[in-house]
Structure formats: structure tokens, C-alpha cells
């Protein structure tokens, strides 16, 4: 897409994710989403006079885990700073954040499209730091003059800020990268990355690089886009903004550096970005070291222990699955992208079935289809791996053909019952004549003594075959087996 355009879109992202702690960054208030306004607040997160912060160990460890997974260098010494600005959702008048000594920097996260829509893109991470969230302001947008309501439940929730290099080159690429980042953070248990609940927020910086006839590259002024509420809107906003900047460039030839960075808000229903008011003075944040907190040092042992407990990140898990179960990179990608629970289910299933490819097909064509249709989770899926393996094994064995297998599968999903019961209830007990003949031939071949006895007239000896047949196929009719066996033996003459 950008290949065809007369410019390259340059995109950097700034992502904030809420960490999955029980309590806030600096106090013991709950971080649970959706509580009644101002019920999860205390002197510290209300910024009351005399209140003091104490750092949540788990928040720091989760942030460290995120930074390690993003291949960042971890600073041996880190501290917190105050970012001073007035806003009613920030009751202290400053945000405790990190300025000159973030705990981690210089990482990377690659995004690969298994279908090859774009080249694999390795995106540099400038820094990851730990800071506190603000509360929520609810504006009366219509009137513009009514009171603003402030709920401070969210104030003080731990946030990881992840800032990328301007390494992304197209809106779809940015979206894919965000998906990969989200997957990684969810895998690691760092964040639930739920955008609806605000636990993942994205701002994007975008401008265009436009080759000039003289070989120079003209760069349009960088615009920061805010208010994007889904990865889809990130892609739409970036697409819109790139086009807008191209039009503006053609009209004004305005280049970067001549005007201050502009902030524009994404208006999703209208599908456009709008310039936001920005007062020059409000960006002088007067950072200085937070005197109410002490610095944190991180040792190599701590880093090793966090790494050990981290679990396998998606990028390596895809490779592991592909080689261990002999499935295609595409299949591994599909499975891994569904999350850790689904991968665990798949591996359990594949182990029982003994065939990775078969298990993967059933996962993708059947399990995922149902999950998508019902918007369900694999954790709540009614067929557990053992039950599904049972079904698949029997299909593989030829007990049922694949379409029969699917019917049984569908019934197992609805009823929650095991294969046997479903098969019985569906009346799949009828065994074809050919099957019975085949089974009987098998039995006769395996029991020469009985064959000889029957030949010698002791027809009752055939009863010895019925038990064996039932074991082989519980659905077979004993009388039919007996008759068939006797017929076959007679036919031998």
C-alpha cells in the first residue's frame, strides 16, 4: 500500500497498559473496574494533605516482566519523578512517573504477518516505565459549561508506559503490532489489555516522509493522535491522518520543525481527526525527583528469577508448537494468537491424539468455530481435551467417518455428554453388514480353534466369538455376529 503511495508513513506508538495487580500502585485500594464512583479511594489516591505513597511490589515485578519480554535493558538503579500539572482527575496536582531514569529502555518487539501482508517488522522500544493512572473526568460535552464530574477510583492504578521508536510504516502494520503487543502482555499476565475498560490505551505519532525530486526527503510535522478506542480505530485514524497530511502537504508544503507538535483527537463516528486546543504553558511539567519514594535497585538475580517465572512468550511459542507438533507456521500462529488457554488445550489434545496436525485441524475447524459463534472461552468449552481426543481417535480409527464425527462433536457441545452416550443417543449403534463381516473375518482369523470346533459341528463354540466382538465394537448385534460367523465358516468349505 505504502509502496504505491508517493510517501512513507512513519508511525510511533505510545501505549499505556494497566497492570493486573489487586491494589493500586501506591495504596491498598482495589483496582477492580466498574465500582460505584469514589468507592475505591483513600487519603493517598485522593491526594489528601499528609498522605504518602508506598510502592506496590507486584506492580513493579509485572512492569519488569513486561520490559523483559520486550527485550529491554533493565536499569540497575531507577527512581520516580513528579510530573506537575493541574487537572481535576489528578488530585495531587502531579503524577508520579519516571522521567530521566526509567527502569527499562531500548527493547524491541517484532511483528510478523504469517500471510505475508507486510515484511516482518522489528519495532524498537524506546522505554518502558511505571507510573500511576489518573481518575476519570466526565464532561458535559453538550453544554460545555456544566460541571465536570470526577471519579477517582482509577486514580493511582499502576500503568506501564511503552514508547516505541517511529519504526512502523503503515496503519495495518501498526494494528498488527498492537495485536502482538497485547497478546504478549496477556500471555505474561501483565495486563488484561481490555480497551473497553481502559486497561490499554494507545496514542500514535505520525508523519510522512516524502521523497523530493532533488533526492531530499521532506518530513511533514508530527501529529499526535489521541482518543482511539480500539485497534481498528487506530488503523482508521492513522489511515485518515496520513491522507490528511498528504493533502495538507500538497497545499502548504509545511515541514517538520517549523510548527510545534500538534495534537489531534480521533472522532470515531465522523471518521476524522480534529485539532485539539493546546496551551503552550501546560506542557512545562517541571519534573523533579519524587521525595516521598526511595529509589529501586534491580539485581541480575532478580531479573533471572522474573525471567524464570515468566512463561514462554508468543513469538517463541509459535516456533515451539510448529516444530513439536509438525504443524505449519500459519497454524501455529492461529493457535497462539488465541491465547495461552487455547494453546494449553491444544497441547493436551495433541498429546492424547498423538497427531498434532489432526488436533490442530479440529481446533481450528471445530473448536474455534464454536468459540467464535458463541463468543465463548476455551476455559468454559464443554468438551474437555480427553473427550475430544476420544472422538478424534475413533474417527481416525474409522469408527465414524468425519462428517459423522462432526455431528457427534456438535451434539457433545450441546449436551456436554461423552462420545459413547452421544453415539448411543443418536442411534449410531447400527453397524453396517460389511463392518460386521469384516469384524467376523478378523475374529475367525484370530481363533482357529473355534473355527475348527464349529466345522466339527459344535456350533455353540461360536459363542466364544461374541464376547470378543463386543469388545471390538459394542454396537454389534451378537446374534448377527454369531450367524455371520457360522455362515462364513460354512462358506469356507
Amino acid at each position, binding site marked *: 500500500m505504502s509502496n504505491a503511495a508517493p510517501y512513507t508513513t512513519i508511525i510511533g506508538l505510545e501505549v499505556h497498559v494497566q497492570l493486573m495487580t489487586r491494589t493500586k500502585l501506591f495504596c*491498598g485500594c482495589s483496582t477492580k473496574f466498574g465500582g460505584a464512583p*469514589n468507592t475505591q*479511594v*483513600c487519603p493517598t489516591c*485522593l491526594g489528601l494533605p499528609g498522605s504518602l505513597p508506598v510502592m506496590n511490589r507486584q506492580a513493579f515485578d509485572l512492569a519488569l516482566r513486561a520490559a523483559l519480554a520486550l527485550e529491554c535493558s533493565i536499569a540497575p538503579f531507577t527512581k520516580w519523578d513528579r510530573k506537575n500539572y493541574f487537572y481535576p482527575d489528578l488530585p495531587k496536582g502531579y503524577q508520579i512517573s519516571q522521567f530521566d531514569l526509567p527502569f527499562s529502555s531500548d527493547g524491541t518487539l517484532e511483528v510478523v504477518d504469517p500471510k505475508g501482508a507486510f515484511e516482518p517488522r522489528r519495532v524498537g522500544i524506546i522505554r518502558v516505565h511505571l507510573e500511576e493512572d489518573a481518575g476519570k473526568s466526565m*464532561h458535559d460535552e453538550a453544554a460545555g459549561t456544566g460541571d465536570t464530574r*470526577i471519579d477517582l477510583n482509577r486514580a493511582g492504578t499502576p500503568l506501564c508506559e511503552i514508547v516505541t521508536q517511529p519504526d512502523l510504516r503503515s496503519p495495518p502494520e501498526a494494528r498488527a503490532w498492537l495485536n502482538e503487543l497485547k497478546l504478549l502482555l496477556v500471555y505474561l499476565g501483565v495486563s488484561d489489555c481490555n480497551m473497553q475498560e481502559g486497561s490499554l490505551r494507545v496514542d500514535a505519532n505520525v508523519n510522512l516522509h516524502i521523497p523530493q525530486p532533488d533526492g531530499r526527503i521532506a518530513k511533514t510535522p508530527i501529529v499526535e493522535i489521541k482518543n482511539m478506542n480500539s485497534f481498528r480505530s487506530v488503523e482508521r485514524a492513522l489511515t485518515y491522518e496520513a491522507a490528511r497530511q498528504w493533502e495538507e502537504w500538497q497545499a502548504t508544503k509545511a515541514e517538520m520543525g517549523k510548527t510545534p507538535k500538534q495534537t489531534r483527537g480521533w472522532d470515531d463516528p465522523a471518521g476524522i481527526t480534529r485539532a485539539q486546543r493546546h496551551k503552550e*504553558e501546560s506542557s512545562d511539567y517541571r519534573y523533579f525527583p519524587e521525595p516521598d519514594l*526511595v529509589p*529501586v535497585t534491580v539485581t541480575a538475580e532478580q531479573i533471572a528469577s522474573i525471567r524464570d517465572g515468566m512463561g514462554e512468550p508468543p513469538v517463541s511459542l509459535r516456533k515451539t508448537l510448529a516444530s513439536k507438533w509438525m504443524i505449519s507456521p500459519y497454524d501455529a500462529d492461529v493457535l497462539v494468537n488465541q491465547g495461552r488457554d487455547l494453546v494449553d488445550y491444544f497441547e493436551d489434545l495433541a498429546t492424547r491424539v498423538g497427531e498434532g496436525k489432526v488436533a490442530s485441524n479440529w481446533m481450528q475447524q471445530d473448536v474455534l468455530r464454536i468459540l467464535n459463534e458463541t463468543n465463548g472461552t476455551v476455559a468454559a468449552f464443554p468438551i474437555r481435551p480427553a473427550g475430544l481426543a476420544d472422538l478424534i481417535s475413533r474417527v481416525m480409527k474409522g469408527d465414524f467417518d468425519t462428517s459423522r464425527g462432526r455431528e457427534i462433536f456438535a451434539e457433545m457441545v450441546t449436551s456436554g455428554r461423552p462420545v459413547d452416550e452421544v453415539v448411543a443417543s443418536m442411534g449410531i449403534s447400527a453397524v453396517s453388514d460389511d463392518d460386521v463381516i469384516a469384524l467376523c473375518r478378523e475374529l475367525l482369523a484370530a481363533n482357529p480353534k473355534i473355527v475348527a470346533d464349529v466345522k466339527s459341528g459344535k456350533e455353540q463354540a461360536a459363542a466364544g466369538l461374541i464376547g470378543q466382538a463386543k469388545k471390538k465394537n459394542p454396537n454389534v448385534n451378537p446374534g448377527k455376529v454369531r450367524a455371520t460367523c457360522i455362515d462364513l465358516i460354512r462358506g469356507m468349505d
Partner: protein
Amino acid sequence: MTTPPQPLTAKDVAKVGLLARLALSESDLERMTGELSKIVGFVSMLGELDTSDVAPLAHPLDTQNVFRDDVPAASLTTAEALQSAPRHDGECFLVPAVLGDSGAA
């Protein structure tokens, strides 16, 4: 580090006043400009010292790594949280509109 301090202008002081969210009248501004210039001139005597080899000391303690466990503690009730609020609706703090002009000329 030995740059002599520039005297503060009324314009500087007005800007700092807005940054500090302090409304200043004309007479406040005049007085404050004089006082701040004098104080800034005085503290600028630190410029006499060569501190190029001295690391900043932001805090007297050498303590590091103070954490708490991720264990919930009691929160205030909404009534307690709002008890000193100049305006509230029983649920939320109320503040004048964050958006829009203040109606100033």
C-alpha cells in the same frame, strides 16, 4: 554554571503565575516581580561554587527498595471521600467545566 541571573520581568512572573495557577492582580504582579527578583538574585550566589564534579543530592536518605505487598486495605466510604469537597453530587466531585472558555474577553 555562573550565568548571572536575568532580572525577572512582569511577563515572566505572570507566566509563572499561570503555571502555578495563582491569579495575580496588577499590584500583586508588580510586588511579586520585585520580591522574586531580589530572592532569585540572592540564591544565585550558589553560582560562585564550582559543582561540575558534584552529583545532585535530592534526598538525605540512602534507603532503597521500599515496597508493600499487593494486599488490599480498607478504602474510605464515598461520604468520607467527599466530606470536604466544595461541591459534589453524592457520588462524584464536581468542578467547573474542564472544556471551553471561561468567558473572558
